[in-house]
């Protein structure tokens, strides 16, 4: 029986879905830790990015953060954080995932505010808005498409990275793949493949859904131009 047939058989066994530690459990873990990580990342990166963009400083810092996190292996952060004050378990995993969510969120928030037409900003100033009001009422609404693009990149990346939480026994869909590897390729090939399909499917689904959401929050006149910009920002930030 080929690995693909084995995978189909494995996925068709209802017990593999409903058992404790089955697909439904793992999916729940995967989604809850991803959601927590993205939320934490947004909480840190958005205010910082918006403020840096507003004040026009810290472009170098944004670049530095994304470059450094690119070089740090996920596995290293996942194994190091539980040994710090965070302790073993969920919080350490969530923080590790959040660290990798920060660069796209930060860079897009920064770019989103920076790309606002300086004349618009001047006009708002001229109307008597204070710095904080300019940020809240002018720059923030205009940056929303960029924030959405950053949110999409970060979320997809966190969902992908959360699969690695299994290495520190953090749960998630990666557990299915790793326990398959534990069985040896001959016996666990189907399970490995099925786990891979689940993880990849979840990431692609998130990508498609969030791309739709991104389109929804982007005002119609900005759409075509925005797509090009997103691609450019995406290339500059994630790259690898």
């Amino acid at each position, binding site marked *: 029986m080929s690995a693909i047939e084995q995978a189909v058989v494995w996925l068709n066994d209802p017990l593999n879905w409903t058992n404790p530690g089955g697909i439904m459990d793992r999916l729940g873990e995967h989604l809850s830790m991803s959601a927590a990580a993205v939320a934490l990342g947004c909480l840190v990166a958005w205010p910082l990015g918006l403020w840096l963009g507003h004040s026009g400083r810290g472009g170098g810092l944004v670049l530095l953060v994304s470059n450094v996190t690119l070089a740090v292996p996920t596995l290293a952060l996942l194994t190091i954080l539980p040994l710090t004050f965070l302790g073993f378990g969920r919080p350490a995993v969530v923080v590790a995932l959040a660290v990798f969510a920060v660069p796209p969120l930060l860079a897009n928030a920064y770019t989103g505010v920076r790309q606002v037409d300086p004349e618009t900003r001047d006009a708002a100033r001229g109307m008597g808005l204070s710095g904080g009001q300019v940020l809240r009422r002018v720059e923030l609404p205009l940056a929303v498409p960029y924030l959405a693009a950053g949110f999409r990149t970060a979320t997809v990346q966190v969902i992908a990275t959360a699969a690695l939480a299994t290495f520190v026994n953090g749960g998630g869909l990666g557990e299915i793949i790793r326990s398959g590897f534990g069985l040896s390729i001959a016996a666990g090939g189907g399970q490995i493949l099925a786990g891979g399909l689940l993880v990849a499917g979840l990431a692609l689904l998130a990508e498609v859904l969030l791309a739709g959401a991104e389109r929804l929050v982007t005002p119609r006149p900005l759409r075509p131009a925005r797509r090009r910009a997103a691609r450019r920002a995406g290339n500059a930030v994630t*790259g690898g």
Partner: protein
Amino acid sequence: MSLRLSYRADPGNPWFSWQYVRDNSDTILSALGDHTWLTVRAVVIAALVGLPLAVVAYWVRPLAGPIVAFTGVLYTVPSLALFAFLAPYLGIGALTVLSVVVLYALLVIVRNAVAGLNQVPPEVREAAEGMGYGRWGRLFRIELPLALPGIVTGLRLATVSTVALVTVGVVVGRGGLGQLIFAGFQNNFYKAQIMTATLLCVLLALLADLVLAGVGRLLTPWAARRAG
């Protein structure tokens, strides 16, 4: 009872220890060598496949969209899932790790090379054509040199992310320095081992990035002259 057993001062679990590095230099060096060799092979293979692919995407316009879109979709696939797709066919070992990291590096290189080639100004292309350059002459003498900054950026990003990605190879037992990180975690959370391997990973990425940046500067002296 426990007092009598603890006849030696608690050795502790420091974040870094030269003692560990000295005592295990063989293991560390072989892991580092494995990691470096995997990275070098991956980037070279990815460049050899990716650059011609980028030229095809540049020449045959209708193919550019699908090639870039396909690389985008493939990039969304999580690394562990890619290991899961390939391992049942390629088995446990270096071949699987190499294939996964080559695929990811390929995406980055193709995207950046296509972007670099597309940045060649149309006037330059027309001027080259007017001077009698053929398709290949124009590619090697005009377009590729002008696209070099984009290509080098792609190579740098691909190298840095490959160094980080190789560690995930622990799932098939060939993660280079990742092997040390994971073993350190499993063996009573030996911090010194985890930290040493992590630092070496980051340093390796940094060093490779600097080397490639230097090569890029040497290859494009006109860009440096313009900047400074």
